[in-house]
């Protein structure tokens, strides 16, 4: 019976392809809800009462074991919630494409969406090597189909193929890692990693797994697919990819860490260094972008860096045998997984609404959106404050956990470790400051001020179908921010179980700390409310005049004289020029020019890693072109090649080399 319940969603998903258009969206919604509830019930149970549950599927290919434990359960809950909001949002968003796409394309899109959900759940629940890799591959293929929704644009096609190839590079690295494991232990599965790590060198295999999972997660230097794939995909797909799919890489890394037996400190240090670099470079590259979605994609890289720092810190804690450090590190990292999926999907949804109404994502052209779309502006503001890690919202809670761990880790260990920790603290502080810089820029340029180009806006704006999931997420963000202990208690329970820590006396000071944070956040909100009420009450009695912006005599300027995104980012981009390498296009005034002619200036952001990758590919093409001379098309030449090959083999055999 249980087996059929598990197989039912798989079979029901095929019905999406043939269901009539009127009820297709509701069918997908109900199916997603069904899958969600089905998997969330054991997940919730396992988070509150740690352990492992096994479900067995007997099939014609043999037995497949689905194992859920606290870690999988947590990621399952995150996945289900984000997919649900994605499906809710897609109803309103896909209306843009109603006239451009036919029914088969929509059906295929929803089918791929459901299969993305199912494959992600498969990744989380399968431990056997082969089935895990099959689910991983399904995830890559279904997201590839989803990105290709606008395949009529050549750029999208190119990006999607680039994405698929990079995912396969990650897959190859994972296959190699699993093969190593099989060569020594005879079995290809996660569970035998423990035996492997007991007897062999830990760091090498871990680095291999890390590289494979880092391609999916988006650590620098494996990140080059992220900033291209996210703008190319439709908004709800970007939200799901950024919110959940890249976390599958993080899940894989944590899963391998749970089996490690030695070298904890070194591995934690390596993860910390990679994450700090990813965080800093990600946010620095985000500051100079013009495209709203590309900017959010780079911020995903930054937040993956923050999550990685938490995980690295936790692993270092395992190495130092300090349970508090481990607890703070892993709890911070995992809570940031949840928080990031929430606020990143919220930011993507708001961006999608702006795109739907204005048909552009270029911040240099937008402006004053807050007057047309006030709800979207409020939701984007909530997401922006959350992503910068500012109290009283949820981003602060997870960053605070990582900060606490780092600060406590200052006095543990040797002087070298203290230097590493202070550098990590400096990176985290800079990441926070840069995020504030970036999001004040985006919010200011897009939503505030006046529009910098002419737009024809239909008066209807966004419909409530798109606002409902966003408000749902915003509510959750605020609840986690104000009452963090609700979410932290079960997290702490299953993290302690997973890493065999004693929880009792660690929990008490942590709950005390967060109680005070909650109190202060509530006091802050009450204060704001009280002062605002005083303000309104007093303003009512006074004279208020409305007029244009004074700005020290600005009134004659045009909207194009406002600060643009490039000018705002310029003060930082100047300092970070060696890293960012933005390209300027400017036809300067020549020496002989007397009469003023129209001039233009544009600045294009440049990703050094993408540039390096392109150079590598060009070099590759060069070599291949030279080798292509061997393909003459003449069959006599090919027979000659075969003859030479046989001659070489005989010579080698004769000399006993082979």
């Amino acid at each position: 019976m249980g087996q059929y319940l598990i197989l039912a969603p798989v079979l029901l998903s095929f019905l999406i392809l043939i269901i009539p258009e009127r009820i297709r969206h509701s069918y997908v919604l109900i199916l997603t809800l069904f899958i969600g509830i089905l998997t969330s019930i054991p997940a919730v149970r396992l988070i509150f009462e740690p352990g492992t549950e096994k479900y067995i599927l007997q099939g014609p290919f043999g037995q497949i074991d689905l194992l859920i434990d606290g870690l999988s359960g947590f990621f399952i809950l995150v996945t289900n919630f984000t997919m649900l909001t994605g499906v809710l949002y897609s109803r309103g968003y896909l209306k843009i494409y109603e006239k451009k796409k036919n029914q088969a394309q929509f059906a295929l899109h929803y089918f791929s969406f459901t299969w993305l959900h199912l494959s992600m759940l498969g990744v989380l629940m399968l431990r056997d090597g082969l089935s895990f890799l099959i689910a991983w591959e399904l995830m890559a293929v279904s997201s590839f189909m989803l990105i290709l929704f606008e395949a009529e644009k050549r750029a999208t096609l190119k990006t999607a193929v680039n994405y698929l190839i990079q995912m396969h590079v990650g897959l190859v690295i994972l296959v190699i890692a699993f093969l190593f494991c099989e060569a020594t232990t005879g079995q290809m599965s996660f569970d035998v990693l423990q035996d492997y790590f007991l007897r062999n060198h830990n760091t090498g295999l871990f680095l291999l797994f890390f590289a494979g999972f880092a391609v999916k997660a988006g650590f620098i230097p494996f990140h080059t697919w992220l900033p291209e794939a996210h703008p190319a995909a439709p908004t709800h797909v970007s939200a799901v990819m950024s919110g959940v799919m890249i976390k599958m890489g993080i899940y894989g890394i944590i899963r391998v860490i749970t089996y490690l037996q030695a070298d904890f400190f070194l591995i934690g240090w390596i993860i910390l260094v990679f994450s700090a670099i990813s965080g800093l470079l990600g946010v620095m590259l985000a500051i100079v972008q013009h495209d709203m979605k590309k900017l959010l994609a780079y911020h995903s890289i930054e937040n993956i860096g923050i999550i990685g720092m938490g995980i690295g810190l936790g692993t270092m804690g395992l190495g130092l045998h300090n349970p508090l450090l481990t607890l703070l590190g892993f709890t911070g990292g995992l809570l940031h997984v949840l928080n990031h999926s929430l606020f990143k999907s919220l930011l993507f949804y708001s961006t999608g609404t702006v795109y739907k109404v204005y048909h552009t994502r270029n911040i240099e052209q937008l402006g004053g959106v807050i007057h047309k779309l006030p709800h979207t502006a409020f939701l984007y503001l909530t997401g922006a404050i959350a992503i910068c890690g500012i109290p009283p919202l949820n981003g602060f809670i997870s960053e605070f956990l990582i900060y606490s761990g780092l600060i406590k880790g200052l006095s543990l260990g040797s002087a070298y470790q203290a230097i590493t920790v202070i550098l990590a603290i400096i990176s985290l502080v800079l990441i926070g400051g840069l995020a504030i810089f970036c999001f004040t820029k985006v919010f200011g340029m897009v939503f505030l001020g006046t529009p910098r180009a002419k737009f024809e806006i239909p008066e209807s704006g966004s419909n409530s179908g798109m606002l409902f999931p966003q408000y749902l997420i915003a509510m959750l963000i605020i609840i986690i921010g104000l009452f963090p202990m609700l979410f932290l208690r079960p997290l702490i329970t299953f993290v302690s179980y997973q890493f065999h820590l004693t929880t009792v006396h660690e929990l008490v000071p942590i709950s005390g700390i967060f109680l005070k944070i909650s109190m202060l956040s509530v006091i802050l909100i009450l204060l704001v409310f009280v002062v605002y009420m005083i303000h309104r009450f007093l303003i009512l009695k006074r004279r208020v005049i409305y007029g244009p912006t004074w700005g020290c005599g600005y009134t004659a300027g045009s909207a194009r004289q406002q600060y643009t995104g490039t000018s705002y980012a310029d003060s930082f981009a100047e300092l970070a020029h060696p890293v960012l390498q933005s390209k300027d296009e400017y036809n300067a005034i020549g020496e002989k020019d007397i009469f003023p002619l129209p001039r233009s200036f544009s600045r294009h952001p440049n990703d050094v890693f993408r540039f390096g990758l392109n150079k590598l590919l060009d070099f590759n093409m060069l070599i291949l072109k030279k080798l292509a001379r061997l393909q003459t098309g003449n069959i006599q030449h090919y027979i000659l090649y075969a003859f030479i090959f046989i001659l070489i083999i005989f010579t080698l055999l004769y000399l006993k080399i082979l």
Partner: protein
Amino acid sequence: MTVLFLSILTSVFFPGMIIRVKSLLSGRKGPGILQPWKNIWILLRKGSVISTTTSFISRIAPVIYLSTVLCAILLLPFPGIASFFGFDADFVFFAYLIALGKFLFILNALDTGSSFEGMGANREALYSLLAEPAFFILFGTLALLTGNTSMQGIFTNLQFDGASTYIIIIIAIYLLVQIAMIENSRMPVDDPKTHLELTMIHEVMILDHSGFDLALIQIGTTLKFAMYGILIANCTIPVDIGFGWQFLLFVGIQIGFAVLIGIMESFRARKKLAKNPQFIVTLSSIALIAFVLALLITFKMIP
């Protein structure tokens, strides 16, 4: 509560004292010490001019700015009196709370759609971005030195034993004074007297505020000075003497702080705007030197 009262007391006299010192050093008599608050009182009773380009952000930003500063003051300890709300690693919460006020203040500036305010906004964002690491390295140093992580714990255990601790405390005071000057946009980063676009950071962001909003922002700014003053007092006042002596020392330190700011503003020229990031990063380097010293002390590598 004591801390709140002390900070309000300080903020009442502080800006007036700075202006008085600057005037006396220029050879004038200067306005009365309570003049800034008389200005605030006038502003509180005035009406407002609101720009049509602005949105709800401008309505809530000054309110949130003031509330975050008040909330941050609630976190501060005083020597011998623990803050009710203190907890481990609370200086992170303190710094980020101030960042919330700054975030909305910057958005408020961008809300008006004027390029002047945009200029001030991005400079403010950049300088606070560069000054944060110095603050965190400083508190990391003090946490490493004293073995506690909450502000209360740090300042209670900060003893003046040994020459090395003296040095760290002196560097800490220097850094706090400089960070206070940068955060409140005073010399040498910005000149509060000029209203020229090239020198404005804070002044330009409040160009379109008037009446009650402007009053709220000015109250917030004076409270921020008081906040840093209390932090400096925490570094220096010993814990075990009576509250009467502590209060006298506190008043002395605040007057000294105000006079110091007045002197620094009168005799220093504003730095070239392009050199400001360099100056702010210098603070982080000096903080790192203090950190290294604390490292050597903690791991017993100094005789």
